[in-house]
């Protein structure tokens, strides 16, 4: 998995609560059994005024430079709620987004981000709004090692993230590989568990 340590870039504001994964990638954009090439379908219903012909909707933030290349999104509360589709995260990644900042996230989406090298960054609602205003078109710097977001003014906000998620992102770990190191413990647990619950 790709590491996430530090990132500098513009942040595209999408200040709506409850942006669901159906909106992030509509199901019909999940065309193949693959994680690749999903960026084109990112926010398709909002991004294109004619989805089939891929005509850009000039009002949508990702169609307005410099946000068309933003590696950071700033969203509203409960970002990524709804369907568990990991394609939402793969589409963001394919498009070039490496960090989403929001007051809260849908739980499955949040986990999917961490497993794909995208930082789901939680800040208080007031800070998120202020950040979007302060960033405007200018780049932010996110430092996962120092746990800071540095504004264009040079001021910095701090954030927290579960240490396991932070380590996974910083080191770009393969979660299955990490767990398989505990295989002896799993085997021992399993033997005991199944002996007590034979019907499993």
């Amino acid at each position: 998995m790709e590491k996430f340590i530090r990132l500098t870039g513009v942040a595209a504001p999408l200040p709506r609560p409850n942006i669901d994964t159906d909106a992030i990638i509509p199901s019909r954009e999940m065309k193949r059994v693959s994680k690749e090439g999903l960026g084109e379908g990112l926010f398709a219903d909002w991004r294109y005024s004619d989805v089939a012909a891929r005509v850009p909707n000039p009002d949508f933030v990702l169609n307005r430079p410099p946000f068309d290349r933003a590696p950071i999104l700033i969203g509203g509360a409960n970002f990524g709620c709804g369907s568990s589709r990991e394609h939402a995260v793969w589409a963001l990644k394919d498009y070039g987004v490496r960090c989403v900042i929001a007051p809260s996230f849908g739980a499955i989406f949040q986990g999917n981000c961490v497993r794909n090298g995208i930082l789901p960054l939680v800040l208080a609602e007031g800070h998120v709004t202020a950040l979007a205003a302060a960033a405007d078109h200018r780049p932010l710097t996110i430092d996962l090692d120092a746990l800071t977001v540095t504004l264009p003014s040079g001021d910095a906000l701090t954030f927290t993230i579960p240490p396991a998620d932070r380590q996974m992102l910083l080191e770009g770990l393969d979660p299955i590989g990490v767990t398989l190191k505990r295989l002896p413990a799993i085997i021992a647990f399993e033997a005991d568990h199944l002996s007590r619950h034979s019907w499993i």
Partner: protein
Amino acid sequence: MGSTLVEKLWSRHRVADLGDGTDLLYVDRVLLHERTGSIALKELAEKGRAVRHPGRAFVCMDHIVDTRPGRGDETVMPGGTAFIRETRAAATAAGIHVFDIGHDNQGIVHVVSPEQGIALPGLTLVCPDSHTCTQGGLGALAWGIGSSEAAHALATQTLVVRRPRQMRVRFEGTPGPGVSPKDMILHLIATHGADGGAGHAVEFCGPAVTALPVEGRMTLCNMAVEFAAWTGLCAPDAKTIAWIEGRPHAPKEDAWVAAVADWADLHSDADAVFDREIVIDCADIAPYVTWGTSPQHAVPITGQVPALDEARDATAAAAWQRALSYMGLNPGQPLAGLPIDGAFIGSCTNSRLSDLRAAAEVLRGRKVAPGVRAICVPGSMRVKAAAEAEGLHTIFLDAGFEWRESGCSMCFFAGGEHFGQSERVVTTTNRNFENRQGPGTRSHLASPATVAASAIAGRLADARGHTTPAPTGGV
């Protein structure tokens, strides 16, 4: 200090404490479907990793399969056939059982798993699908995951999980006539918000939950995820045990006796401590219908679209404004009487036998209004067969409903069938998000009885005018 039900299930499955509130949990069952499971199997195969216990994993073909009679692997959705065939091939290669198209047991994963006895009280069960929480209705710890996590669960039989906070939602009193479990859960979400359960595992309890049939409890738990809960569940009781006994994958003979004895402990202790508790008086619950594009945009069917100045803050007001323009509605407009174009009965929320009975009770001897496209999609082929055995299909067909093969169907738009731009649809599904049921389609979530009554009226209608079904009816 006693333990909550979730704490008990958690400690039964904890392989290791990973620190910082995170545990390695043992996973008893992994379920997959062709839409998101195929990629998990593919990822394992590419990395040369084996499925640890293929016998405890199951695949359902449900999401993009056609639901028209005579279906095969071909799909209305462009490219769907590849998902079906790749999933089948990958599952077969891994030795995983497939509930496949054309089989008597095929259906929506969250309907099939309980009815097959795959989901059981006390088990941990995961599926790369957000409505896995449905199966918490049996007293399982069941939660939705992503595809990468599904690969992790298949390869290691474990998942790394953050301990959720504990919430109890207690439904007191008795729901009034015509108030269904769907209305109970919509009431909770409307009152406490679509993110009201964030970070929590929610135990639904109280006399009104105890009184619910097992299928109704699954409807309640189904929408825990629309409340942003990590999962929802109900403690198993004698009703649960009776419902499970004899199902194909349920334990048999000595194992059944041992299982039933074990399940007696699966309840929250009297002195268990919850981080949050919500108490709802069922007397306050009416049949609900949504007016907007979030399940929290719900009001009683006798109510109106709220005025924008009732919104909590400017962000909420802006979201309401956007929802109203999508839905083609205005503040203050009454919901009842709104003309509809479509009616849909199905989905993992409301497609079990009791749901079809509740709808049929309203439809019996009546006709769908002209111009309304009405569709019923049973949750599984077994539900379909059971409904046909008691003649429900003739009630639906005589009324003018389409009677489909099982699957997710038009619960969501995958690029195939849909209701159409700006069409107003009353639906027993769980998500009224923008474009969920088709580009521009306007979805109003409601109970099976409300959908049936509205289909007959040709407009959103209060089912209580048609009939007074038992509040909980069915199995």
